[in-house]
């Protein structure tokens, strides 16, 4: 069993499906922190979904939570487990408004 701590960051897209994290095969991931910071202009919403590819379900863990300008929100309270090939997606309503930082532990 290998434990790998990772940090990933990206600028949230304007809609779902463009910027995602996919758990590698034969790996379980634990989300330690998922933070969304508003670096744009005005208040913008942020949404996050988890696609459970084994069950074929995609569900919101946060939907259109407004993030005021210069504020940041931790989108995961506690820990979030992701199984192999599951997909985490974070998006806003416009590009270049929300910066996303993901801290994750991959166990393989």
């Amino acid at each position, binding site marked *: 069993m290998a434990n790998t701590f990772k940090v990933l960051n990206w600028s949230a897209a304007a809609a779902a499906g463009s910027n995602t994290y996919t758990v590698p095969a034969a790996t379980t991931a634990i989300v330690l922190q998922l933070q969304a910071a508003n670096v744009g*202009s005005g*208040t913008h*919403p942020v949404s996050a979904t988890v696609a459970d590819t084994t069950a074929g379900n995609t569900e919101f863990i946060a939907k259109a*939570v407004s993030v*005021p300008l*210069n504020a940041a*929100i931790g989108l995961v309270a506690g820990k979030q487990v992701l199984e192999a090939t599951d997909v985490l997606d974070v998006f806003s*309503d416009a*590009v*270049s408004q929300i910066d996303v930082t993901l801290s994750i532990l991959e166990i393989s």
Partner: protein
Amino acid sequence: MTGISAGKTWSRIGAEVAPTSSDASGVWQMQEVAENVGAGTWPTHVKGTMEYIAQYAADGTTGLFSFTSIPQKYRSLRIVMSQGKRVGSGSSIGMWFNSDSTSGNYGYAKMYGSTTNSAYTYGRSAGTISMGDCPTGNAADSQMWICDIANYSNASVGTMCQVWQGANQQGGYNTGLMGFGYSVASAITDIEINSAGYNPGALYNYDTPTLFTLFGIGLV
């Protein structure tokens, strides 16, 4: 769920600061967001509202300026000229998109006040935008002018606009309505505004305290 407590002053680890309706700087956890949403103190996002983009403040030295690198994220644009004054009398506001001065790419129709306070007239033409005397050039006047530019970021179609302007004189071509179009299918990234719309080649400098403010409306 209005009424859930937020911004408590008696917390063991120090007073919580409740966000205002427009500001909540800091790092917030979901339970804090939920608490403040319930208390009615969490700001809602901006979709459908109007945001400031840029402003030009006239100083009497030029009759031509541009808004450049216009963000493409908004549904529409609005330009507001307030407290409009000009050095001497002269011409109307002219406008070019994306540095395109090809007159055949523009066309307009307008209704506006005529030379007396009891008469109106109309006009239509191809060419640069021409909307009567604006600003008036009369030192006692302070004119307003508003231009809405719809769907400007769509590169697949031309751009349609409307203008309305007012002044404290009904006559003198100072008040009226106009619609105009730009037929080139392109996203509008630059807007040049000049005071030579009615008489190309002759600029009449915009004077203090004239302000031109560019706003974005809604989100694409």
